[in-house]
């Protein structure tokens, strides 16, 4: 009994319960929901959206926010597509360079924030429009169409059953990020800085290095998501990343991330992405107006922050009683 109770207090329990419940209810009401094709569509959405959520989660972990995830992702995406079409670079080489652009863009954010002490909100708002401006300056709002067949195949073929190839990098990132945040000094430093910057500094952690590293990781993840979307969409669309902002906050918050920093959960964030994907999919299945997806996303953020707040207050109260 006590084991069950303890499990119920973890971050991932609530989202997991909601996921299982949603799958059960929607699966009963609309059996096509559990068809191979539909599961495959869900996994495709999960593959890219998880990376988008992670690129925000790592910044939430360090106690900041990054408005420019979408702009970095979009810039890397069109850089990836553009380098293959215009310069004729082989796909892996272009992907590495695009990832490099993402890391550099993220690191620039981090350097500005760490060196000047200006709030991350303002810096990333400014860099959002710089990166987005460079994107539209290069593309003039025209997509790149010259994507090699191998890249298209990687983005749209399946390995076994409903499992797409695209899920492979995502699984590796999930494992890597879990290892980073739970087992590596850098990950622990990121959480420590997010939890209490002052205490982290006093215990010998270099706060500015940690902030820059977190932003570089965020940029790298956003770039990877952008590259994978190019493979999935089969064109280098300049509008990639424009609609990432709400989603990138929704999933970590549903996963119980504390917005003031220091507390995130990789597994719960993945479940948060899954919940968003399942509900979006359900709206389509039940022929509900797709515009309402925005409303549902917003309502889910409100609901999740409400639940998190309630949990915080309850934990604080029980701590007082002891």
């Amino acid at each position: 009994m006590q084991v069950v109770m303890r499990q119920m207090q973890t971050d991932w329990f609530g989202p997991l319960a909601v996921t299982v419940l949603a799958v059960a209810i929607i699966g009963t009401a609309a059996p096509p929901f559990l068809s191979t094709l539909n599961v495959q569509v869900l996994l495709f959405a999960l593959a890219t959206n998880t990376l988008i959520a992670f690129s925000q989660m790592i910044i939430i972990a360090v106690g900041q926010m990054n408005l420019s995830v979408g702009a970095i992702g979009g810039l890397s995406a069109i850089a990836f597509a553009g380098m293959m079409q215009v310069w004729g670079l082989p796909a892996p080489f272009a992907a590495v360079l695009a990832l490099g652009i993402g890391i550099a863009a993220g690191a620039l954010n981090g350097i500005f924030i760490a060196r000047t002490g200006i709030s991350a909100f303002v810096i990333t708002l400014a860099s959002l429009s710089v990166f987005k401006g460079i994107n539209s300056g290069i593309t003039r709002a025209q997509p790149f169409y010259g994507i090699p067949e191998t890249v298209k195949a990687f983005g749209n073929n399946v390995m076994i059953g409903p499992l797409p190839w695209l899920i492979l990098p995502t699984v590796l990132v999930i494992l890597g990020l879990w290892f980073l945040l739970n087992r590596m000094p850098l990950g622990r430093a990121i959480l420590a800085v997010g939890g209490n910057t002052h205490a982290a500094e006093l215990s010998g952690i270099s706060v500015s290095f940690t902030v820059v590293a977190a932003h570089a990781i965020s940029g790298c993840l956003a770039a990877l998501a952008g590259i994978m979307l190019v493979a999935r969409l089969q064109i280098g669309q300049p509008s990639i990343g424009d609609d990432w902002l709400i989603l990138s906050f929704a999933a970590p918050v549903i996963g119980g991330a504390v917005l003031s920093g220091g507390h995130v959960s990789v597994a719960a964030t993945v479940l948060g992405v899954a919940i968003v994907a399942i509900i979006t999919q359900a709206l389509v299945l039940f022929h509900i107006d797709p515009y309402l997806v925005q409303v549902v996303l917003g309502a889910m953020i409100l609901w999740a922050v409400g639940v998190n707040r309630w949990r915080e207050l309850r934990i604080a109260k029980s701590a007082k009683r002891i």
Partner: protein
Amino acid sequence: MQGRGTSTTRVEPDEVLVRASPTGSAGGLRFYLTNEFGLLVLILLFGAVFAVLSGGFLSTFNQFTLWRTAAVNTVIGFAMMTVIVTGGLNLAVGAIGVCAAMMCGWMIQALGVPGPVGIVGALALGATLGFVNGWVVVKSGLHSFIITLATMSIFFGVMVYLTHGESFRNLPPSFAEFGRTRYFGVVSPMLIVALVAGLLLIGLYRFTALGREMLSAGAKPEAAELSGVRVGRVFILCHMLSGLLAGVAALLLVMRNGAAIPSMAGQLGQDWLLPAFLGPVLGGTLLSGGRVSVVGTFLGSALVTMLTSGLLLLRIGEFWVQACLGLVLLLAVLIDVARKRYLAHRRMV
């Protein structure tokens, strides 16, 4: 989150020093280091540069459209400024604005009410949505960033669902007329609306008890609460004012376009975010709350509009203008940090 944490503790000591320092020998110098003076110099400087480089810049028509756009950007900046006072943000300004504009269009076109009633309806909706934001922020005790991020998505989604993304184009001719009118060849009535809104805000923050309460509640909520300010109620009023001003800005845009268009602020109203922050931040409004500069916001918005207009005239390419505006914001905050450090340093010596 950020505003409450590190930046408050870091910025405030400097800020207190600046405000508390007596107007002694450094007094004259301090005036030249204010944001407002700097902005004025930059406006004149860039105005001169653009006038030399591009013949069309000083033409009456260009000046008319420039200041008309500046009027809209200023009111958008005011809408954000009234919430920044509380130490929070309102990401939903664009979404609220579009909702208000569509409300006006719907009331006039579908209900057949006269124009002024439609305007009142739009402003009432703006204030109501602002109230929703404020109420949720105060009751939940969460940072306004995440709340307004969520409501931005909700408001915009409901708006698109109800309107099916269709514009309202059958507005009274007086609306488009208002957008086209030119006094003395250059002055748009929209600029007058923005200036009146600015004067009212100055009056509010300078001379009314409510305005002073907003500033004190924003600077130090706990201290304000102890001295009898009902902080929650004041914060809700700040959000309502923000919603109202977002409605005003959206109505100005409706009059300029001659139609209420759902996409006039981009996806989820995100296109308003940059002008909304550029004005107040350039103008010296503290993001951690408690200090505003109405004149600075106006000058900041005017400078940004002038840069946009001038860069377009110089054929930089409209796609690069956004990148330039981002760099301006970055540069402005960096200069601001340098200025504060300089002032703090002088005070210490």
